[in-house]
């Protein structure tokens, strides 16, 4: 294992979902302090479904108010809540049969301690002060602890519901990846040469995928800081969630001299878009050692981190297309 810190990264997906003819009225009522079930052939389903679970037939929007009290059918005490749970203090997840419903709702019971929980116990819904048009607008408490609440109705129908999904990861760099990363910090590009195909991979994945051969430290090779632009694209930034770019930027693939695989996703800012072209000879200019860091480089991607100050033209004649055709795609 390397002495570099683990690569940590977060994936976020901001979901906005339309609610439709059943979830919409349910979330609207929930925001306004009421819980709805839906009638289905003599039964009341809560949470309400769009379909008959037995036949799959579409259900008419025949809602009926249920709860806010109910009975716990099954429960589990969450002693160490996860970041994604609706309570940071220990709580219970429970299947709750609300008064007037025939199917159970899964939700959180904030009971304070495991000793307060028992199968069959009565619970009652409590509404959050600030409601977000989500199932998490309520939670449950043992009936004896419930407060009476006046819930002011909100405006309009809930037609959308939002959920930000945020997932965190952390993993040490794989050994070959760590050696590549250290090379970058030292101002050089460390690839791996396959003893079978002779191909030099940069950055290497730790194997030769053409020959299905694992590579190790003895296969490491240092390649040049100069190379050829083999392909590029100009990205015009769309202002999606998390976007930080505002101006069009070049992303280029650069085949370093001595490598058989281009370094992808190179951010080119020091060469005007109008002058940039495939075949151009370029040189990597590293930042001073103290200013280099690995940035978002992890085991998945991030090819040069923040170790380069820029790519600059070498001034050599361009390579003709035939010389780079294999990598120009």
């Amino acid at each position, binding site marked *: 294992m390397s002495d570099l810190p683990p690569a940590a990264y977060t994936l976020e997906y901001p979901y906005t979902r339309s609610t439709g003819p059943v979830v919409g009225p349910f979330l609207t009522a929930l925001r306004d302090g009421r819980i709805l079930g839906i009638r289905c052939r003599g039964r009341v389903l809560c949470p309400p479904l769009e379909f008959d679970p037995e036949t799959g037939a579409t259900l008419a929007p025949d809602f009926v108010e249920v709860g806010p009290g109910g009975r716990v059918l099954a429960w589990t005490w969450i*002693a160490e809540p996860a970041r994604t749970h609706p309570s940071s203090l220990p709580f219970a*997840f429970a299947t709750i049969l609300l008064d007037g419903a025939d*199917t159970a709702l899964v939700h959180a019971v904030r009971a304070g301690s495991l000793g307060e929980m028992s199968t069959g116990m009565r619970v009652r819904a409590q509404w959050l002060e600030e409601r977000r048009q989500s199932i998490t607008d309520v939670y449950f408490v043992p009936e004896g602890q419930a407060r009476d609440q006046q819930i002011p109705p909100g405006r309009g129908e809930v037609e959308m519901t939002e959920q930000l999904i945020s997932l965190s990861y952390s993993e040490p760099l794989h050994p070959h990846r760590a050696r590549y990363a250290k090379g970058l910090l030292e101002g050089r590009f460390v690839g791996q040469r396959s003893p079978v195909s002779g191909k030099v991979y940069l950055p290497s994945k730790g194997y030769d995928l053409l020959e299905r051969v694992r590579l190790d430290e003895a296969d490491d090779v240092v390649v040049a800081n100069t190379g050829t632009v083999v392909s590029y694209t100009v990205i015009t930034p769309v202002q999606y969630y998390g976007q930080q770019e505002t101006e069009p930027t070049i992303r280029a693939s650069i085949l370093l001299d001595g490598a058989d695989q281009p370094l992808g996703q190179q951010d080119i800012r020091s060469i005007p878009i109008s002058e940039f072209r495939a075949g151009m000879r370029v040189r990597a200019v590293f930042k001073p050692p103290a200013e280099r860091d690995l940035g978002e480089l992890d085991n998945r991607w991030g090819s040069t981190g923040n170790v380069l100050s820029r790519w600059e033209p070498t001034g050599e004649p361009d390579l003709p297309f035939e010389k780079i055709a294999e990598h120009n795609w």
Partner: protein
Amino acid sequence: MTAQEIAIVAFAQTPAHRQYDDSEPSMLMDLTNQLLAETGIEREEIDFTIAGSCDYLSGMPFAFVMNVDGLGAWPPVYESHVEMDGAWALFEAWVRLQVGDIDVALVAGSGKSSPGRPREIFALQTNPYYCAPLGLDPVSVAGLQARALLDAGKATERDFAEVVSRSHRDGLANPNAQVAKDVSVDALLSEPYFAAPLRRHDLPPIADGAAAVLIARGERARRLCERPVWIRGIDHRIEPSHLGLRDLTDSPSTRLAAEKLGIHAGAIDVAELCARFSSEEIVLREALGLREPTRINPSGGPLCGHPVMATGLVRVVEVARRIREGSARRGLAHATSGPALQQNLLCLLEGGA
């Protein structure tokens, strides 16, 4: 259509690692090379490849494409993928070979759970309006299921601990086990709750790992190995996603799959169950009607190693290994997907010419 005879001709698995220090494709590459070396065939002779994996586990969009590196990316493969346990990849390959026009398929399942937080990731499998915003995770749902079993009188906490004690002890003989130890039931019962009534040891360890099998049709299977392990049938069934619509103390989908396969038409020498929580084994044993002398989870099962996306395929490998070694003649492998055994797959395996 007459069913094709299809057999497992080679199988391989990595140990269940708490944290494997290299990539998922590199694990698959080792397994692929092992299967090819054992059967002596070239990669070009594999007609179809399919893998089961989950991009969310390591947080790498399109990770499943990278995994093809490990199966041999060149020359181009006829490839498929399921975002499910490798056991479902086996099902698709088995169905594909039923067509009868190709002979050999490579099946893999792999996952690295160590970089992420499985409790947070797998809550996203649940209903996006009613459950996912609550972070309703597999451990919590297993806790609800365990409680339901206790309240229904179908199990005791001691029953859960007995499953754990037996499994961890069996793990001592399994070189691929991540957790293996000899612990008494009483010692287990003195541990604190994690998701009461479940304790930490009732949960599977977080693991990285992979498994792969090579399957072939009829005569080709007989030529490729001395002792083919015949797939007599695979069936999988699913239950509603809403927990409120299910009896968590039962597994009607497993029972139905077992009926369709006719598992009780002969003795079942060994059953490898994808019981990720000790409480799930109680539900599965009952739904399958397993009794002595059927040996359950001699590998130690998922409680000794749970490389998510491979755990079900590992069950197939463990049964196939025992049939090939001759310690079992006929065996059952089980895989599962979704919270509280929502979807269940059974694969019936048998030795013989």
